[in-house]
């Protein structure tokens, strides 16, 4: 925003929110990347690190909410300022959830350690994670630039993640049917894939929030949805 407030402290308060959100974004991104790396390489130490980092995001979200509430009470923000603060609260909540999902993946590393993941599945999962991470990274860049057009692009890409998730889902089902001993690890991997797909959804939420912050209007149109797993069964393979 170009102009500054008559109350300079107000500017500082808004800047604090922006800075903390960016920090949260960086941590969430790292957690997701680490959790997938830990999964693929069965790296228990890395998984532990991810699990412990979750508390940082929980704290950050709490602090952002407190600051936002105090700022609303003190400044009675209007228009773009109000949207900025409400947006911060929502984005912090999404990033906190991303952290939870990363942590959940990390916990599963411990559960499936020793089973070993088939190469092909690992690659599928990595590919899914790459896309979700790219969404997350891009949406954090958009947060910095506040470009509504780019927010829209991110939202449109979510369908791709859903499609890959659906194909991974099919593959995991096949493995489970081939050998019942695969059921436990594959079930965990299924949850991991679902978690990563959800991370993509949170990135999309954030994109929509940024669009609203920038324009004051809600993004129009349905989200692209290509997660068809709700209608898939083992029999369909």
């Amino acid at each position, binding site marked *: 925003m170009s*102009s*500054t*407030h*008559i*109350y300079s402290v*107000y500017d500082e308060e808004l800047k604090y929110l922006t800075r903390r959100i960016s920090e949260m974004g960086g941590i969430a991104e790292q957690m997701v990347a680490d959790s997938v790396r830990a999964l693929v390489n069965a790296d228990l130490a890395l998984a532990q690190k991810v699990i412990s980092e979750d508390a940082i995001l929980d704290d950050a979200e709490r602090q952002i909410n407190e600051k936002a509430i105090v700022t609303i009470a003190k*400044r*009675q*923000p*209007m*228009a*773009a*300022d*109000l*949207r900025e603060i409400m947006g911060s609260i929502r984005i912090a909540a999404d990033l906190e959830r991303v952290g939870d999902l990363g942590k959940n993946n990390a916990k599963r590393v411990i559960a499936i350690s020793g089973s070993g993941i088939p190469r092909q599945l690992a690659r599928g999962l990595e590919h899914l994670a790459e896309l979700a991470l790219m969404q997350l990274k891009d949406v954090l860049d958009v947060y910095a630039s506040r470009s509504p057009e780019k927010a829209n692009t991110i939202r449109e890409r979510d369908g791709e993640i859903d499609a890959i998730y659906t194909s991974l889902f099919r593959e995991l089902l096949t493995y489970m049917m081939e050998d019942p001993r695969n059921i436990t690890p594959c079930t965990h991997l299924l949850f991991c894939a679902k978690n990563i797909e959800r991370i993509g959804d949170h990135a999309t939420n954030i994109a929509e929030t940024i669009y609203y912050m920038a*324009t*004051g*209007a809600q993004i129009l149109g349905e989200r692209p949805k290509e997660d068809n797993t709700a209608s898939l069964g083992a029999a369909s393979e």
Partner: protein
Amino acid sequence: MNMMSEAAVEKALDQKMNTAPYKMTGKDVSVYYGEKRALFDVNLNVRENTVTALIGPSGCGKSTFLRCLNRMNDTIDSCRVTGKIVLDEGDIYDPSIDVVELRARVGMVFQKPNPFPKSIYENVTYGPKIHGLARTKAEFDQIVEHSLQKAGLWNEVKDRLHESGTGLSGGQQQRLCIARAVAVSPEVILMDEPCSALDPIATAKVEELIHELRANYTIVIVTHSMQQAARVSQRTAMFHLGNLVEENDTDKMFTNPDDQRTQDYIMGRFG
């Protein structure tokens, strides 16, 4: 009135807001104080049963515009008004208009509560007496009770109607002035920063009152409190350096205004 019907009334009023006929229209209104021009071709319409808030930085012409709506500017010698202002169908600056009668139809409440140094009762009956709206004591009694009820003051003063109006608290005085305006059955009530001399509780009472009055009157309020405009009005007009720069739904105005000057002003930013 039960909860349901109250909500229904509220909803009906809200729907009416965007379709209600214009009670007053201002076309190309310009105002000069001597050589100095204070308003530049303002086109602003006011809908019936709607609270319209006028906002903008000090000196932007809010009060000047408000005073055009009941020709209060006529009382300022140097002041000249051009353009057209219509109440219902009639041009209020038409030479045939009786200004006293106009001001009964378009009442006004000022920034500083200004009750007459008379009893509460006489404050309320003053207007009706001048306009010949009542003759018997019973009729006057009825107007007094009705007006004080409408102004949300009845319960507080009904046992001391013959005490002086100036002995009331500031908030009560302002509500007495509203009762005084209501007493002559106006159609439009103009308010110029009616709460700026009141504490937050007295302010809340007046705002609640404005909210209720909207069902029966058309209200135009000048306020320098953005929050107040957001709370009490359905339409908001933003003035800047004598120009009307934006008129919009209040909800839109305070979440996503169209004009950069409005944004800067309501967000407290340097333009």
